[in-house]
């Protein structure tokens, strides 16, 4: 294949997982589940715990002031990263919590007969919260279907999004199929009916450019741990006007302005959504992850992963009895590739690949209705790419599949 955009040998020096006992036989193709962590992120987290460990927004002493300054600086970094304003960034535990804040906030504002439009490929995190909203309010869930090439059926979307649509909640990129959703186009359709637009960017962030102005979404959610940040960190972006009227999900310390025995008023946006002591070290690590991604450059990352995706599609398609579940093209898709090996369950394949140090995910990928509707009752095997991968990883995967087929006599 042609020379990759990024030099992985150099990038591997940033990741301690490549200098440990795994070196040489660690083929990590599961970044969509959770990415590896580079040294600058670990260093930032350690610096907090080792040199200025204190709570934020509270202490009248130097360490707390430093902690507050560093924590709030990340808000600015994240805002710049997705082209938002600082007070539109809320720190959460992850995409799931971010989406739950939004869904919960709309329970009181929806009524029976209102419609929430999703796509058929939502992760459970952007499906189950809306199911609960529908149960509580009597509103109806509608699902935008896929065309046979696994892309969004935009004509169907035009028919589905209408005057009854109150919320459009869609993924930006599928964690199963790799399909990129034309979220900006869908947002335009939804806004024409004054619906609120929510985007789940968990799989897109750090892999392709994410710009909330271009998307013109009202809310956008993502996790830190899928973009080289610590686990337990996430972001909810919301337009200021939306956040001001949205009710918080969690109540307690730091999110209040004034409290009496009977009553309380809320702190300003964004702090009214950050009840209790936040994941300070994690957020500081998230800031380092944003800096790390920016240093490498999202455009370069996207180009690198697109090259490898093309190579993976080619290598997999060459193997008899392997079927790609998703767009078999490199345009409008991310480096998440699901596939099926006829006659072999994804868990068996994943186990056999693991024997050679090849890490993939097998199963339903938290999108059970999608896999069932596509007829893949056993789920799929999925590889997912990041900046740490190169062509050798794809070749190791292909060799592993051939080995598994031999064991299963396929």
């Amino acid at each position, binding site marked *: 294949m042609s020379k990759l955009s990024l030099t992985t040998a150099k990038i591997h020096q940033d990741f301690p997982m490549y200098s440990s006992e795994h070196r040489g036989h660690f083929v990590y193709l599961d970044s969509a589940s959770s990415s590896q962590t580079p040294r600058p992120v670990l260093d930032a987290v350690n610096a907090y715990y080792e040199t200025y460990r204190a709570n934020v927004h509270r202490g009248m002493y130097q360490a707390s002031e430093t902690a507050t300054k560093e924590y709030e600086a990340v808000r600015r970094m994240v805002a710049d990263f997705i082209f938002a304003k600082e007070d539109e960034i809320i720190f959460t535990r992850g995409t799931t919590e971010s989406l739950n804040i939004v869904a919960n906030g709309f329970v009181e504002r929806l009524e029976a007969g209102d419609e929430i439009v999703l796509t058929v490929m939502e992760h459970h995190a952007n499906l189950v919260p809306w199911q609960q909203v529908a149960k509580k309010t009597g509103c109806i869930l509608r699902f935008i279907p896929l065309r046979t090439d696994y892309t969004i059926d935009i004509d169907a979307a035009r028919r589905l999004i209408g005057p009854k649509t109150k919320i459009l909640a869609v993924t930006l990129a599928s964690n199963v199929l790799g399909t990129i959703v034309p979220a900006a186009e869908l947002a335009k359709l939804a806004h024409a009916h004054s619906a609120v637009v929510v985007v789940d960017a968990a799989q897109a962030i750090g892999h392709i450019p994410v710009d909330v102005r271009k998307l013109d979404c009202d809310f956008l959610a993502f996790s830190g741990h899928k973009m080289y940040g610590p686990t337990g960190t996430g972001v909810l972006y919301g337009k200021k006007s939306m956040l001001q009227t949205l009710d918080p999900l969690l109540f307690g310390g730091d999110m209040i302005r004034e409290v009496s025995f009977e009553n309380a008023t809320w702190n300003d946006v964004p702090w009214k959504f950050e009840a209790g002591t936040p994941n300070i070290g994690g957020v500081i690590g998230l800031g380092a992850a944003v800096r790390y991604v920016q240093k490498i450059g999202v455009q370069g990352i996207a180009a690198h992963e697109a090259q490898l995706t093309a190579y993976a599609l080619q290598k997999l398609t060459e193997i008899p009895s392997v079927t790609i579940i998703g767009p078999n093209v490199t345009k409008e898709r991310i480096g998440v590739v699901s596939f099926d090996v006829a006659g072999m369950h*994804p*868990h068996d394949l994943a*186990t*056999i690949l693991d024997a*050679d140090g090849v890490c993939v995910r097998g199963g339903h990928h938290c999108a*059970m209705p999608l896999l069932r509707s596509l007829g893949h009752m056993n789920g799929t095997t999925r590889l997912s790419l990041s900046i740490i991968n190169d062509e050798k990883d794809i070749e190791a995967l292909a060799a592993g599949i051939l080995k598994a087929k031999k*064991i299963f006599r396929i």
Partner: protein
Amino acid sequence: MNTDLDMYRENILDHYREPHNVGSLTDAAVHHKELNPSCGDTVEIFIKFDGDRVSEVSFIGQGCAISQAAASLLTDHIKGMSTAELTALTQQDIFDLLGFPVGMTRLRCALLGLKTVQVGLQKI
């Protein structure tokens, strides 16, 4: 931690390709189905008793080699057992039937058949 591929030995793959005791039973005293939500493995079990002892057993299943081979081996193993003996079956018994211990990542696959039998038994 990389896996030992011992679990894909020939007798396991034989049980996977051609499982024993496949089918349904009418008027089964125990009839229960369990699903492994992470991977979609299913086992539906049917048991008939003669007195307190298993006289007939069958299953219908779908899923990975480990879940289906373990269910096949289990149905062979429990013929003639009393309800008390069924209740007393443990994870170790499944490991013994398979011929190897199963790690955390595949434990639910290996134990799906046993769970189906024991949950089904509680319903009667």
